[in-house]
């Protein structure tokens, strides 16, 4: 079996230096990146990182007296490769701001309040069908402290391990219909509008049950596809 790594089109990747995002100009390499032949080293990768990393459950919203403040939502994620094959066992890390737009992180000195009932992180392993489900609250928007000031729209961060080194992905998921999406410098660093659309989750039509949360579905495609089906 071999795995093919089609290069993603440039317009479907973020530009690396972003106007109004000063850190990108101090940290992005100046020299052209080096193209290399792919050997086993790049086309294999860690399959069991979860043996080094402790799990963190997907129930973030809580219940009763421990219920986090904010709109409870359910995120249904599916991790597939470029051939559409589910990545069973994919390790996924997720983190987000609370409903007020504040992270539980020493780097976040925003004035928005912390919520004692919300930590805002999960680490899960996808099932045989590449699926993961997280019950959380919808994150708030927050201002980015730069000179000309801009706001991040509500978003959720994901770190995903595929089956090979080149499939490793760090990305963010956005919500449909958010007015701040159109101005976000990180989302709009991806030039192709169709590629940006693939970063936005889909709202599933609500059920009639008032106790159900709003459900968002989202597909994450990691790099690589099998050239031949795996042998039994």
């Amino acid at each position, binding site marked *: 079996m*071999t795995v093919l790594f089609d290069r993603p089109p440039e317009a*479907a*990747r*973020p*530009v*690396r230096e*972003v106007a109004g*995002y*000063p*850190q*990108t*100009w*101090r*940290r*992005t*390499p*100046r*020299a052209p*990146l*080096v*193209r*290399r*032949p*792919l*050997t*086993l*080293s*790049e086309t*294999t*990768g*860690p399959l*069991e*990182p979860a*043996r*080094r*990393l402790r799990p963190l459950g997907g129930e973030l919203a809580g219940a009763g007296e421990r219920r986090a403040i904010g709109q409870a939502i359910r995120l249904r994620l599916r991790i*597939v490769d470029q051939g*559409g094959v589910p990545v069973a066992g994919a390790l996924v890390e997720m*983190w987000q*701001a609370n409903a007020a737009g504040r992270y539980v*992180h*020493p*780097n*976040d000195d925003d004035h928005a309040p912390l919520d004692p009932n919300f930590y805002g*992180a999960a*680490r899960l392993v996808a099932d045989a069908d590449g699926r993961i489900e997280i019950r959380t609250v919808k994150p708030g928007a927050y201002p980015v402290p730069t000179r000309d000031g801009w706001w991040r729209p509500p978003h959720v*961060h994901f*770190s995903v391990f595929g*089956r*090979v*080194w*080149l499939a*490793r*992905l*760090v*990305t*963010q998921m956005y919500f449909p219909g958010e007015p701040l999406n159109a101005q976000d410098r*990180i989302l709009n660093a991806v030039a192709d509008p169709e590629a940006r659309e*693939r*970063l936005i989750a889909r709202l599933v039509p609500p059920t009639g049950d008032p106790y159900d949360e709003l459900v968002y579905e989202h597909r994450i495609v990691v790099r690589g596809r099998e050239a031949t089906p795996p042998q039994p």
Partner: protein
Amino acid sequence: MIPTPEQTLGPFFLPRFVDADANDLTQLEGRRARGEPIEIHGVVTEEGGAPLENLIVEIWQADAAGIFRHPLDPRHREADPDFLGWGRAATDREGRYLFRTIRPGAPAGRAPHINLMLMYSGLMRILKTALFFEDGPGNDADPVLRCVPPERRGLLVARREAPGRYRFDIRLRGEGETPFFDD
């Protein structure tokens, strides 16, 4: 299908995601990996030389026999069962990272090396590089190292400070900039 676009890690990747022993590849669930334990350490800086705190470094490498623990490696059934080949570290306030690992053997057609990946606020895409050893062997013939312009190859070679201890500084931009790969 086209892969989901990358987005920056941002400044809020939780310290909790960097588990206490995630940078120690020399043991797995209490059992020691085969081979020579080594330490790889260094400082990560941005343009102007300022150290970067809480930057995430991940590594992937072959075991002491040069085998990758992955079914695509034809020799994977002989891979060391007590070596995962993967680890994660975060830089401290002075920009320092540290891995305890096993000296990798030479995979077929390659010099001994360790793959590194950097994730951080301001990095719109993951940065990928590779580390080679000052005391080689086979660096001159490595097909990946040979893709790097000759005058920059030395920047991918870790310096031997003491037996089993190597220093590999990473400069993201500017003078002495580390070569990075685009795959």
